[in-house]
């Protein structure tokens, strides 16, 4: 029995265009699915305080659209939107993913859930379509705010994963 799973998310970079996040929850799959897909729930956890959720609409059916946005303390608006490609409650959704800050970084986000002995495992895979964002990374201003350089972001993560994992194993000097 795990009292607290805080901080237990696992983050992997299976390829240079993908991010994979896995997390377990001590709750039945149907409830977890609802919490991930119903606006009345998403609006409760969707923004990290002091950020405030300003929009949360979800039309959960194939072809339906979703739109979340939140505003940060300094007034920056972050907007995420897309269209559902697959909806299979309570196991899976796949949807296009567009982030206002990365206008040319199209991705498909896939959520998969499965339950074993009352524990629901959720995996979220974000797969970017191509390297369009990253191709112009070096010319993009680096200080325009959070997550603004899409390609560089992924590229650096790939590089970091490879390099850091090996170096951490090898030398132990990066970690503390």
């Amino acid at each position, binding site marked *: 029995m795990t009292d607290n799973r805080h901080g237990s998310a696992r983050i992997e970079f299976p390829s240079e265009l993908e991010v994979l996040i896995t997390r377990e929850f001590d*709750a039945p799959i149907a*409830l977890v699915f609802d*919490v991930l897909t119903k606006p009345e729930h998403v609006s409760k956890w969707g923004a990290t305080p002091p950020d405030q959720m300003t929009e949360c609409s979800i039309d959960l059916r194939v072809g339906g659209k979703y739109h979340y946005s939140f505003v940060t303390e300094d007034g920056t608006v972050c907007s995420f939107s897309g269209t559902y490609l697959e909806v299979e409650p309570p196991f899976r959704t796949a949807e296009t993913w567009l982030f206002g800050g990365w206008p040319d970084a199209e991705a498909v986000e896939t959520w998969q859930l499965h339950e074993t002995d009352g524990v629901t495992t959720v995996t979220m895979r974000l797969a970017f379509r191509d390297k369009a964002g990253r191709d112009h990374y070096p010319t993009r201003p680096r200080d325009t705010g*959070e997550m603004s350089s899409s390609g560089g972001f992924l590229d650096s993560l790939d590089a970091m994963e490879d390099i*850091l994992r090996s170096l951490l194993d090898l030398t132990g000097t*990066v970690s503390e």
Partner: protein
Amino acid sequence: MARASTTSDVFNAIAEVSRREILDALMAGEKAVGAIVDDLSMSQPQVSKHLRVLSEVGLVKCRAQGRHRLYSLEPARLRPLHDWLAQYEQMWNERLDRIDDYLKELQKRESSSDG
């Protein structure tokens, strides 16, 4: 993830795949330019050019041994990248922890209304 401007050079340095390959090659230990050229399908001028960039941001250091210049990694310089990745992991963890807390709250509410 806003990046600290002081780390941007390191980010740029590893954004180039050839330079990551050189870092990989140096993981096995200190090497001369010629040995790196042998390891990778790159010309000596290319390797030298990338080594110069890596040296400038401090990811590799160089020492002279006789006629050779030997290059080795400075892994501590990857610390800013490590911190940045940690920040990204933290963002996701915070988000998923909020979902976790919210689920617990819902389940508590549900069980108390049942009983």
